[in-house]
């Protein structure tokens, strides 16, 4: 914790900001990328959102009070940026967020940056059928193994509600996979 406080101070100090920010990038760029990618699906969108996320972090680092872990703060910004990005895309295409998700999944087969087999594709289709919050919880728990405690900070939801969401999501996905 002391290390984290010191790290935050370096990020907020003009003299050390750039070096500290480069360290932050090294530590989190890949984790945040995969978190974002699972929400926005395509690589190009994920790249946009990842850049926007770090730009937002760089600009608002002075406002970070250290109330939560820097990891949760970063994830919260990345999640919000991803959802905002989807909303914008959906609005541009004049469709709902759910329709946008289905549209993105349908494009996955032709995506050069997707190398999943049929069952992996089916899993993504199954996830796309879930409500937004359940999608987030499932992805964060199943693929990223984020603790409920941290997830609670990121999504601003109680641990109990997150556990319930995950349980429901798993049931729905299993049913989807068994169908056909």
């Amino acid at each position: 914790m002391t290390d984290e406080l010191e790290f935050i101070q370096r990020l907020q100090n003009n003299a050390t900001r750039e070096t500290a920010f480069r360290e932050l990038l090294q530590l989190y760029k890949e984790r945040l990328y995969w978190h974002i990618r699972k929400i926005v699906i395509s690589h190009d969108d994920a790249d946009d959102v990842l850049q926007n996320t770090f730009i937002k972090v760089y600009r608002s680092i002075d406002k970070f009070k250290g109330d939560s872990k820097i990891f949760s703060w970063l994830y919260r910004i990345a999640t919000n940026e991803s959802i905002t990005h989807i909303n914008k895309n959906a609005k541009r295409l004049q469709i709902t967020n759910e329709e946008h998700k289905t549209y993105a999944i349908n494009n996955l087969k032709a995506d050069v940056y997707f190398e999943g087999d049929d069952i992996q594709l089916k899993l993504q289709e199954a996830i796309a059928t879930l409500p937004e919050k359940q999608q987030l919880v499932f992805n964060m728990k199943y693929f990223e193994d984020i603790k409920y405690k941290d997830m609670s900070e990121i999504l601003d939801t109680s641990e109990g509600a997150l556990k319930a969401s995950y349980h429901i999501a798993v049931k729905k996905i299993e049913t989807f996979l068994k169908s056909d």
Partner: protein
Amino acid sequence: MKKDKLHNIKSTGYKTPDHYFESFEDKLFERLFEEELIDGVENTGYTVPKDYFKTVENEILNKINTEEKPVINLRSRTTFYYFAGIAASFILLFGLFFNNNNSLSVDMLNTASIESYLHQEDYSTDELASLFLNSGISESDFIDINISEETLYEYLDNTDTEDLIFE
């Protein structure tokens, strides 16, 4: 199928372009600094003379009050053009009716001049033919010859009539 069980699927299947993460930082910093450069520009750099905004208001008001330009009456100008038009028409009429001593007519030209003109201008026979609008025109319109019956019989006697039929 066993493979269809959720716990058998360990990854999403997503991948990134080659060296994406290695190049990400440079790309991000480039964008950050570019945007910072633009953000750093707080004004356009244009300046105005000292106390310009204090004086400009009065200058505008003064101009409004003093520079009342005379209104040009459009009607007077229209009347002028009206009379000028009538005068010009009279001059033209006088010119046409009383000053035609040197008028030209086709009769004044000799045939040789017309032929020479047509030859020089390189008119084709088709173009000339198109000028003849009278469709009932025939060769005899241009030839004034009286052929006696005797001459005609003589001609027909000496000519092979079969050739004429074929023609």
